[in-house]
Every structure is written in structure tokens, then in C-alpha cells.
């Protein structure tokens, strides 16, 4: 691509790419859009626009499987383990040492890191320094490149889900899309307060973020897997084959 695109909300693509696409097919602006929608309306036997109706309500009682009253930490740990995640329960003070031990077990010398600034992040960096691991700066290379050459990616999370043992990560200035995805191992540092009960809660939270919602939010449950070859379960196909969680209970 010849021109850098600023991307970002509401901004149109500039440069050759935009000009080319204007000439093709049906764009979502102008006549093309109306023609398309007219066909849809005709199929629905409708002849004009109507406002957005109310969809059937999501009966919470029916859809929710885990409520806030339960022991969310225990439930999360159990479900994550069931999904093939190694869960290490620890406390803030012990975090650096536990991280060191985990990286030793994963034989991870070089790592990339995506963390929001916080006391948790400080502890992670302390642990990395103490264990003398090399932190590769993913900002120094284009796209996801930096992550291909490390042994593990360390991230915090936007949230964790007790119902499924899942980790939720979102891309932003401090968080690369590749840290939890590209290296062969992923270590997630999760606070007990990060854990929400059910999938319902995640989407409520994301909805609240509104326009501020990340361009890429991922819910990850366990290591990458496939059973395409004769139904045999194999991990680490594209994403990491090993996922570990440091569950910090006193924060």
C-alpha cells in the first residue's frame, strides 16, 4: 500500500484504495445502498423504512449460568483448567517469583509484554527483571513481527469469565493484537477483581464502553486446538499451545 492510512473512527480511507473502490460494485452509500435495501424490504413485504424495533428480551434467568453469588475465583480456576489452561493462584507479593517459576517451566527466555500501567504491571516487570528475561519491544517492529521471535507473550486482561474459564483481551495503545496470539506460550496475569460471572456480563461491559470499544476484542478459552485430522485433539495449531494464568487473589 502506497499511502499510510490514519484509520480511526469515522475517517475515510484516503489514497488509491478509496478511489478504486468507489468505482466498483455497490458501495454502502448513495443509490447502491438504497437499491439493496429496497430488495430486502420487498422480500419482507414492506414498503418504507421503519424504526428499530425491540428484539425479544434476553431472559437473564434463562441465559445466565453463573451468578455473582458464586465463588468466582474457584469457578474460573476450575473452568480454565478444564479448557487446558494452567492456573497458578498467587498473591501480589509472590507474583514476581511465581512468574519467574512459570517462565522457567515454559523455557521462555524472550518475551513480549502487553500490560496497562498498574501495580500489577510493576510486579510483572520486577519478576521479569529478577528472572533476567529479555523483554522484546513489539513497538519497535511493524505489525505483529516482534512476537514471532519470542518464547512467550505476557498480558493482563480486560476481564476473565468464570462461566467458561475465558480471558478477554482488547487491542489498544498498550496492548498488541499479537501478544497473546503469536508466541507459542501465553501467560495472562489476572486479578480476582477482573473475573466476571457469565458471558452476559462481558457483553454488558463491552456495550457500556460504547464508542470507546476496542477495534479488536478477543475472548480466549484455552490453547489453540484442532481435531481436523481423524478427530485427534492437537494443541498449538496457530495460536499458543500453552496458556497459563497467574491468578492474583488479593487485588
Amino acid at each position, binding site marked *: *500500500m502506497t499511502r499510510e492510512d490514519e484509520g480511526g473512527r469515522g475517517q475515510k480511507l484516503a489514497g488509491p484504495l478509496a478511489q478504486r473502490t468507489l468505482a466498483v460494485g455497490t458501495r454502502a452509500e448513495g443509490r447502491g445502498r438504497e437499491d439493496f435495501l429496497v430488495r*430486502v424490504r420487498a422480500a419482507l413485504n414492506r414498503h418504507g423504512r421503519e424504526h428499530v424495533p425491540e428484539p425479544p428480551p434476553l431472559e437473564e434467568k434463562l441465559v445466565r449460568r453463573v451468578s455473582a453469588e458464586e465463588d468466582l475465583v474457584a469457578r474460573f480456576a476450575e473452568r480454565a483448567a478444564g479448557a487446558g489452561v494452567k492456573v497458578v493462584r498467587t498473591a501480589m507479593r509472590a507474583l514476581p517469583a511465581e512468574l519467574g517459576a512459570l517462565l522457567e517451566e515454559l523455557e521462555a527466555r524472550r518475551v513480549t509484554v502487553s500490560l496497562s500501567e498498574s501495580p500489577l504491571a510493576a510486579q510483572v516487570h520486577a519478576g521479569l527483571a529478577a528472572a533476567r528475561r529479555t523483554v522484546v519491544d513489539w513497538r519497535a517492529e511493524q505489525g505483529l513481527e516482534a512476537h514471532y521471535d519470542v518464547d512467550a507473550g505476557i498480558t493482563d486482561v480486560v476481564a476473565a469469565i468464570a462461566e467458561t474459564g475465558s480471558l478477554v483481551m482488547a487491542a489498544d495503545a498498550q496492548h498488541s*493484537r499479537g501478544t497473546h*496470539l503469536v508466541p507459542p506460550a501465553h501467560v495472562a496475569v489476572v486479578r480476582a477483581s477482573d473475573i466476571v460471572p457469565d458471558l452476559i456480563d462481558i457483553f454488558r461491559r463491552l456495550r457500556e464502553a460504547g464508542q470507546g470499544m476496542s477495534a*479488536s476484542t478477543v475472548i480466549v478459552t484455552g490453547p489453540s486446538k*484442532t*481435531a481436523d485430522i*481423524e478427530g485427534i485433539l492437537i494443541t498449538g495449531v496457530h495460536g499458543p499451545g500453552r496458556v497459563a494464568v497467574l491468578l492474583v487473589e488479593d487485588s
Partner: protein
Amino acid sequence: MNPARRASDREGAHLLDPPLPFEMRPRIERALADARLQAFVNGATLERDRGRVRVCQEAFGADLEALRELAGQVKQHTLDHLDVYLEQFIDQATAAGAHVHLAADANEANEIALSLARASGCKLCVKSKSMVTEEIGLLPRLQEIGVETIETDLGEFIIQLDKDAPSHIVTPMIHKDRSAVARAFQRELGAPYTEDPEELTRIARRYLRAKYREAGLGISGANFLVAETGTLVLCTNEGNGSFCVSGPRLHVAFAGIEKVIPRLEHLSLFLKLLARSATAQAITVYTTMITGPRRAADHDGPKALHIVLADNGRTHLLRGESRELLRCIRCGACLNACPVYRKVGGGHAYGAVYSGPIGAAITPLFKGLANYRDLPQASSLCGACAEACPVKIDLPRHLVRLRQRAVEGHLTGFFERCVFRLWRIVLERSRLYRVATAMQRVFLRAIGARAGGKPPHGDGRWVWRAPGLLRGWTSQRDLLSPPSRGFRDWWRERAKEDKP
């Protein structure tokens, strides 16, 4: 049919894009003769089907029915107001920085993709699963303009290498064994021959990683489109989807217009049902939600996101009763539940992109009933598919309607029409009916007499081998003839006895 597409080197293309009208019988016969294929497909689908039942029971218990009903209602509601929700999705996605294109048919969708590819100057494309791209036959078209497109889902990758075609919409290579994979890798990738699945996967991972790093274009499908926020949702277990949409500078996503759901919160309902129905998991390993291209502050992610919403026959289904078929979330549960699908060795027998019960219902609507008149017949109407469907599509009803339309459209064979005309004549006349049933009784008892053996009750006789048309039936089953006296006669005599 596009001649350029026929000339593609993808031999597997003919499997799902056969000459029309499609003759299902030869493929069925081939599959029935292949014991190994049967064992394979049988094992894979049965296990998934049982797994679905088990995990749904564990997770939802008695609430399962209500959840399926709710999911069906949300989908139906969205379809009933699809114009509004589509507009909302377009507006929201555009506000988030994506470009939304509307393709009326396969040609338009391909043209949009080709022009985007050309303008980008990309020569290498990495692709995750998208049924729409299979419908429109995108890959050979990209090939023609010099864009190498690599399928990254492991099963699809292997199938692409082997010039084969997928046989299941979720688990595409249930018809292939490890030795076929080993041969394909050796032949196409120059890898040493190994049948170890772990080693084979490592070979694929290494190869595909190199491609991820180089590719300028990423193509994906979308499992859901959220109208409220303009978000694309991709569900994979391997993570290949995430690679395709995070690495390359241009991301083009394809989705059918029926993939829209109203709100983000509805995802919780559909995600809880999707993976359980598809692969007996609580949730897919990766659920990636994309809202627009990279933000200004992001370090990575595509600079441009283009979303192609395809009609390609869906507005045709949107009319009238077939609208319900658009509820489909492509989980594959009906394929796994269907005894016919199992027996015919999977999707290749259906000769279309969509196979199994859902394929049998929508393919004739997309491609013309005259072209695929065998598909609605390939069912015993047992209803396993309707029970499995997480959005409660009453598939047997749709198959029956297609059969009705086949009769109305004079698409049934001469012999079949004669038989049913005779059937109707006899059933409309009670005297003729009685004569016919008497003849049947006499005949079956006569041929049954030779076989012998005591029946469970009454004085019916076992027929172990019937001649003519019944031979096929009795080759697998014993047929019990009617008793010496029919119910009517018995009843009449009883009534006489009861009278004082």
C-alpha cells in the same frame, strides 16, 4: 457457470459444483460401497452428535428447550426486520471506520473482492473459513489475477493442498485420513513423509506462519454481525481467524446478510449454543470481535477493513415460509445428527457447498429445485435435525414442502407419478381399498408361508425374502405379514357378538 472457474486447477471444485441437474444416486452408490469412508464419517459425526447432547444437558438441563426457542425467536425477529438491522449494521460499521459493500450476487461479490485486491497490490492472501466465499467461488478468481490465497484453517488447508473439497461445513475433512494428509504434505510442501498428527500439524504451522508474516491481504467470514455496534464476530478453535484479521494491512470480511443479530448482548445466547451444537465445547477457543480497522493509537491491526455483505439468493429465501431457513448459524449440528448424511459419506454426496439437512433445504432454493431435486428426497424425515437445531428450524417441514413443489413442478419421475396416482385412486375408493388390502394379505401370507418362524403375536407370517421391489426392504429386515383376518372383519364380528 463461469468457464474460467471450470478451468481452475482446483479439481475438488467439481465435487461441490457439479454439472446440473445434479444426480445424487451415483455419488450415494459410491459412498455406500466405501466401507472405510462410512466408518470415518460415522465415527466423527456420531461422536459429535452425542457430545452435543451431553454438553447441552450438562450446561442447560431443562432450560435447553427454552434457550433454543429464544435463540430461534431472536433470529426470526431479526429476519422479520432485516432491512432495519442491516441498515443499523452498515451505519455502525461505517462509523467505526469500516467500508461496507453490498453485493447482490456472486459476481458482484467477486468483483468487489478483486478490485480491492488489485488496488492493494497484494500478491499473497491468507484466508479463514467463509461459506460465502465458497458459494461465490472466490479463490480461483483471485488466483486468476495473481493473488495466491492460502486457506489457513488446518482442515481447509489440507483440502486445498490436496485439490479436494470440504465434506462438512464445520469439520471439513471428516472424509480424509492421516495418510492422505501425509502424502499431500510430502507432495506439495516437500515435507518428509510422516503420519504422526502432531508432526503433521507442526509442518502446517511452520508453513502457515511464514505466510501470515508475508500476506498483505486477510480474508475472513463472520459468524455473527452485530447491528448495534457494527461488530464482526469470528469463532475459531485454531486461532487462524485471529491471524488473518490482525496481521495483514487489508482485511476483507464476507458475510451473508442473514448473519445479523440485533445487539451485543445476544452474542451471549448464541455463543453459548454455537460451540456446544457444533463441536460439543462450551465455547470456541477464540472469539474475535472486530469493530472497525485499527484505531489511531493501535500499533497493529489492518489499516483498512472492508465488509462485503452478500445477498446471493438470500432475499429469495426471505420471502414467505422459507425465511425460517435463514436462521441457520452454520453450526453443523443437523449434519452430525442426520443418519442419511452419515450413510452417504458426508457432504460430497450432496454436490453443493451446503450439505446435510440444511443443505438439502436451501440448495434447491438457491440453485433451483430442478437442478437439485434429489436433495429433499435424501431424508427419512426422522426429525433428528429439527431436534438438534439450536435455532429450532423445522427442517423436515421445509423438505416436505420442497417435495410438494417437486410434484407440482412435474419434477418427479414417470414411474413415481404412476404409483402415487394409483395409490390415490385406491385410497379414495373404500371398496377398491378393501380389495387391495385383501390382495396384499393373501400375497404376503403366501410368500411368508415358505419362511416360517413364530410371530410375536397373532397369526402373521414372517416374510424373509420378498420378490421385486420389496427385495431391498427384506434384505435388511424381516417383514411381518398381516394376520389372517383384518381388523375391520374382526371388529364387525365382535360387534355382532356384542349384540344381544
